[in-house]
């Protein structure tokens, strides 16, 4: 018979081991640089739910896990693409301008990776262009990861530091998480 204290001790040891293992794995995941592989849900994602309201009993959707959301290199690639493909031209460094802000908690078309993926690929009616066919899915997923990091939705050790550019906002890795709020109303002008 093992004494409770002993088993407690072992459990604690197991817990410690699990924590260490998790830390180790997260380090691997964070630092990985796979140049040729594609994230799992890369090619096709199913139709994305845009509304909270569902007819009939509520079902939980399987959300797509964007592996790039745990990968610092992919997030920084996303940041580079964000600036290169002129996302920054409308959304700037997250404060918005022509397009809505991306560093705040307001999400018009959803904050989940698949929502953002759909927004980039499909475009949105109030001025968001559709990048279908212009970007590889791989690039879009990197962008998705970066866009989520802008409002602190990624782990801080994954989000980017400052760029070698003008200081205009606190760096992504120092941005406190803004709990996503689904705002149904596009900020663009409303019809009367």
């Amino acid at each position, binding site marked *: 018979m093992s004494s409770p204290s002993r088993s407690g001790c072992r459990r604690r040891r197991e817990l410690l081991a699990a924590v260490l293992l998790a830390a180790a794995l997260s380090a691997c995941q964070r630092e990985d640089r796979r140049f040729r592989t594609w994230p799992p849900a890369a090619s096709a994602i199913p139709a994305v739910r845009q509304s909270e309201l569902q007819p009939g009993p509520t079902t939980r959707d399987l959300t797509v896990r964007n592996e790039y959301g745990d990968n610092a290199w992919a997030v920084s690639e996303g940041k580079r693409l964000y600036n290169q493909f002129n996302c920054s031209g409308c959304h700037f460094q997250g404060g918005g301008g022509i397009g809505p802000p991306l560093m705040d908690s307001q999400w018009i078309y959803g904050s989940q990776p698949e929502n953002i993926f759909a927004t980039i690929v499909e475009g949105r009616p109030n001025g968001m262009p559709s990048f279908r066919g212009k970007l590889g899915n791989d690039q879009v997923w990197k962008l998705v990861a970066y866009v989520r990091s802008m409002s602190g939705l990624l782990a801080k050790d994954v989000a980017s530091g400052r760029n070698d550019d003008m200081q205009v906002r*606190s*760096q992504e890795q120092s941005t406190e998480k803004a709990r996503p709020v689904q705002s149904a109303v596009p900020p663009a002008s409303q019809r009367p």
Partner: protein
Amino acid sequence: MTGFRIVANVTELPTTTFGHRSPMWWGTIGFIVIEGSTLFICAISYFYLRRNFLNWPPEGVFRPALTVATVQAALMVLSNIPMAMVDRAARRLDLRAVRVGMVVCTLLALVMCVLRALEFEALNVRWDSNAYGTVAWAVLTAHATLLLLETLESLVFTALLFSPNLEQRDLAGASDNALYWYFLTLVWIPLYAIVFLSPYVM
């Protein structure tokens, strides 16, 4: 094994020595050199980065406010008086005077820490605003770290002075602490001039 032939006896040598006779004094000098170098590097970086700007502080950044920093600088200089008294008292092995002096100095150090916090405010710039802000914060932070460590050390040492386990040679520590204090407070004067005054003239 080689044998030994006794030629002298050292029993009568003292066990408590002050100043350069004490190894700890040399150790303190060593750390002063290391930390002095670090501060020097921050200062060098300050002037090196200055070259990248047309104006200093750059346009759109206010100059640092002087009041708190000037009070701090004055306090640092003046604090050397009680500390020198501690130093001398220690060499006299005057425990009571050392205790009083160390209490005073520790309080002064705590005041300096508070002033230092206000000095960051007085810089009028964030560390991540631009390289000017960065390097001004760097100088201040580097010195603040030493100040904090010295404050903690003084606290512990003062506590030790009231401990029953106190030994005579610990009083040599008061002297070494004083040496470090002279360095810490006097090195601040040029740094103060760099961080707070030079933006008014460069």
